[in-house]
C-alpha cells in the first residue's frame, strides 16, 4: 500500500494503463504474448479485482464467485443468440444478470459471517453448477456447453451469411488482438472503479467491517447494506468477466461455475496479496501463466532447453524437472502457493514491499555515507 499512497491516483492509473496496454510487448519474451492468454489475463484480472473488493476489503471469503462468472457467460451467449453479435448488449445484460443473482445469493448468505458465509456461497455456487450441468440443459446445453448456431434468431442482425458470425463491436472483430485491447480497456476502467472504491468513505467502512464488525455496529452503523453493496459489486465484476469470456470466445460451459473455478480466484487473490490493489492481478498473471504455458512444456521442449549441458546432465535435469511441468503444473503451483502462504502471508505484494524497504534502507545508508 505504500506504493499507492506516495503517488497520486492519476500516476497510478497512468502507469497501470501503460503496463496493461503494452502487455503484448513485455510478455512476448516469456512466451505469453499471444491474444488468447492476454485476453485471459485481462478477463481474470477483472474477476480478481472484483473479488478483492469483497474479500480484500470486508474479509468475507466467498467460495462461490464462479457462479456469477458462469451466469455472465451464459447471459452473454444468449444475447449473441437472440439479439445481436454486438458485444455491448451482451456485456450489459451479463453484468445486470450477475448483479441480480448476487443480490439474491447475497441476501441469504450475508446473514452469516465467517466460515458459515463461505459454506453458504459454496453451496449456492454448487447448486448453480448442477443446475447448469443437468437440470437446466435446455438453457445451458449441459456439459457440451452453449454455442452459437446458424439457426439462432439474432433479431437485430438480419439474416445470417454463410458460416457462423463472430462477435463484434461496431464492425471490429472481437477475437485476436482487437479482442484483447477491448478487454484491456474494460480492465483499466474496472481497475479505476476499484481504486475509487478503495479510496472512498464507502471503502473505509468496508475495511472497518473487516477489522471489527461488532465495534462498528456499536457505533451505530448498520453493516448489512454495505456488505450487500460490496457483494453485489463484486458479483457484477464477476459477471462482467464472464461476459467478456463469451465476447472473446462465444461459448459457455458449466465447468466455469464449478467450485474449482471459485477456488481459483481465491488462490489468485491470496497468492498476489489480499486487500492490495495490484496483488490480485499478479496472482492472475502467475496462475494463468502456469496453466497455459507450464502445462504445455513437454519432455522434448525440456531437452531442447537443456541441450547446452553435457548428455548425462541434460538427461538428469530433464528427469528432475519433468514431473513439475506438463501435466504436473498443478504440482508446481501447489508448491509455489505453499511457499508464499508460509513465508509471505501477505502474498507477493508483501514480498515486493519487503524488497522495497530493504532497498530504501540501503539507499538511505549510502546517502549518509556520501555526506561524510
Amino acid at each position, binding site marked *: 500500500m505504500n506504493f499507492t499512497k506516495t503517488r497520486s491516483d492519476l500516476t497510478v492509473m497512468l502507469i497501470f494503463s501503460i*503496463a496493461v496496454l503494452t502487455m*503484448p510487448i513485455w510478455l512476448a519474451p516469456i512466451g505469453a504474448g499471444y*491474444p488468447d492468454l492476454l485476453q485471459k489475463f485481462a478477463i481474470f484480472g477483472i474477476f480478481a479485482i472484483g473479488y478483492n473488493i469483497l474479500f480484500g476489503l470486508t474479509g468475507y471469503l466467498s467460495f462461490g464467485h464462479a457462479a456469477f462468472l458462469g451466469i455472465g457467460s451464459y447471459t452473454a451467449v444468449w444475447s449473441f443468440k437472440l439479439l445481436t453479435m454486438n458485444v455491448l448488449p451482451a456485456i450489459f445484460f451479463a453484468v445486470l444478470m450477475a448483479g441480480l443473482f448476487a443480490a439474491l445469493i447475497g441476501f441469504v448468505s450475508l446473514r452469516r459471517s465467517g466460515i458459515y458465509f463461505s459454506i453458504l456461497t459454496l453451496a449456492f455456487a454448487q447448486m448453480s453448477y448442477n443446475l447448469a450441468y*443437468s437440470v437446466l440443459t435446455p438453457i445451458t446445453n*449441459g456439459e*457440451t456447453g452453449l454455442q452459437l448456431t446458424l439457426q439462432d434468431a439474432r433479431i437485430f442482425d438480419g439474416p445470417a451469411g454463410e458460416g457462423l458470425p463472430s462477435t463484434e463491436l461496431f464492425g471490429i472483430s472481437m477475437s485476436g*488482438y482487437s479482442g484483447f485491447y477491448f478487454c484491456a480497456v474494460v480492465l483499466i476502467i474496472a481497475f479505476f472503479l476499484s481504486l475509487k472504491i478503495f479510496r472512498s468513505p464507502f471503502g473505509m467502512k468496508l475495511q472497518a467491517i473487516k477489522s471489527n464488525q461488532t465495534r462498528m455496529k456499536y457505533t451505530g452503523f448498520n453493516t448489512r447494506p454495505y456488505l450487500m453493496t460490496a457483494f453485489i459489486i463484486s458479483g457484477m465484476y464477476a459477471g462482467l468477466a464472464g461476459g467478456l469470456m463469451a465476447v472473446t470466445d462465444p461459448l459457455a460451459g458449466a465447468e466455469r461455475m464449478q467450485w474449482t473455478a471459485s477456488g481459483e480466484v481465491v488462490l489468485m487473490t491470496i497468492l498476489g496479496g489480499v486487500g492490495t490493489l495490484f496483488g490480485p492481478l499478479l496472482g492472475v498473471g502467475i496462475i494463468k501463466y502456469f496453466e497455459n504455458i507450464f502445462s*504445455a512444456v513437454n519432455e522434448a521442449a525440456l531437452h531442447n532447453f537443456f541441450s547446452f549441458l553435457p548428455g548425462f546432465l541434460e538427461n538428469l535435469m530433464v528427469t528432475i524437472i519433468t514431473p513439475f511441468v506438463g501435466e504436473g503444473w498443478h504440482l508446481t503451483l501447489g508448491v509455489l502457493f505453499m511457499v508464499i502462504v508460509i513465508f509471505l502471508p501477505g502474498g507477493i505484494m508483501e514480498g515486493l514491499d519487503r524488497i522495497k524497504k530493504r532497498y530504501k534502507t540501503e539507499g538511505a545508508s549510502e546517502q549518509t555515507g556520501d555526506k561524510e
Partner: protein
Amino acid sequence: MSDTKNWNRRDVMKAGAAFAAAGAAPMFFTKDAWAAKDFMNNPSNSSTVTLGFNVPQTGAYADEGADELRAFKLAVKHLNGEGDGGMMNTMKPSMLKGNGILGKKVAYVTGDTQTKSDAARASAKRMIEKDGVIMFSGGSSSGVAIAVQGLAQEMGVVFMAGLTHSNDTTGKDKRRYGFRHFFNAKMSGSALGPVLKERMGTDRNAYHLTADYTWGWTQEQSIKETTEGLGWNTAKAVKTPVGAGDFSQYITPILNSGADTLILNHYGKDMINSLTQAVQFGLRDKQVNGKDFQIIVPLYSRLMAQGAGENLKGILGTTNWNWALTDNGSQAFVKSFGSEYGFPPSQAAHTCYVQTLLYANACEMAGTFYPPEVIKQLEGFNFDGMGNGKTEYRAADHQCFKDVLVVEGNQNPSSQFDLLKIVKEVPRSQVEYDASIFGGDLGPYEV
C-alpha cells in the same frame, strides 16, 4: 514489469519489432486483409511445419489421452522418415515420402484439454496463436471435440478429431474444418443390433446409465433405436455426471426396476467404475424375468478392459479397431508401436495415428497447406491399408465409413492385452446411413 532505465539497443530493437508485430497482428485476424492465398499460420518459407496435439492428460479420459499422444509422436516420427514407417508402408493410395510434409520437417506441440471445453479451447488457441500450428488433433470427449471443432472453423485451421463417438460431431455440429475417422454411436447401434438379437433374443427390458453430455445422449438414442427395433422395452434411462467416481446410487435402483439388461453408455474411467460396481452389486449373477441379467457396453476400448479386468468377461460392445486384427496395416502399426513403447496400441491411438497420416497425405495431394484445398482432397477420399479395410471419408459430413468390430470381453485371455475377442466384423454397408438424418451444416471453405 519492465524497467525502462536499463534498456540496451537489442531490447529496443526487440521491442520495436514486437510493436510492429502487434500493430500488424490485427490485420492478420481480420478477414480478407491479406492476399487470397494467404491463410492462418501459413508455413510459407519455414523449414518446419507444426502440428498441435490436444489431448486429455488429466481427468476421466486421461488414459486414452496418454495413448493418443504416443500415437501422435509415432506418426510424426514416421512422417519425418524415422523408425520403420508403420502404416505409411501399407497405406493405399499414398503420396507420403517420409521427408515430412511437402518437404518440411514435422514438429509438434502438445496441450492438456482436461476434458473440459473451456480448457481445450484455451489450449487449442494457444497452439494456433502462439505456436502457429497448421493442423491440430486430439480428443477423447465429444463435448470437447465439438467445442474445438467450432474453433477450428472460426480460425481456419483444420481439426482432425481423435476419439469422439457422438453422432453430433459429424451430425448436427459438423464443420467444414473438422474431420472424424473414428466411428460413431449410430454405427455402433447398427453393428450391435444383429448380434444382440442372436445372443439375447427379442424380448428384453433394458436400463440405460448414460454419461450426461453429447456423446452419452446420442449413444443412448442410437442404442435405444436399435434395441427398440428388435422389440426390446426400455425400462428407464438415467443420466450420470461425467467423472462421478461412485455410481452405487445409480446402480441400486436397477435391482428393483424389473430390467434384465443394463446398457452402460459410459467411457474411460467412468465405465471402469460403473461396470465394476455393477458387478460387485451382483447384477450379473441375477435372474430377472427368467433370464440371466446381461450388461452391454456399446463403446469398448482395450484400455478400459485393462482397468475393468475380470468383470468384463463375456460383455458385448463395439470398437473402432483392435490390435489383434490380422491385416497388413494393423500389423505394421502394432509392430512399430510395440517396438517403440513395449505394448500394443489402443483404438484411440490407432485413430489418432491414422488421422495424422491422412492429413499429411492430403497436403501432399493438394501440393499446398492451404486449408480449403487440403479439405477438398480429404472429402470423398477413398483409402485402404489403414487397419479398417476399404474406407471412405464421406464428403457430405466428414465421417469415415468402414467396417465396425463387435467384440466381447475375452473369457480366456492369453496375455494382459488380449482382453477383447472379435465376435464379428460388421461390413461397412450395414452401418451406413444417410448423411442428412442428423441435419447440421458444414459451413464455408474460406473463413
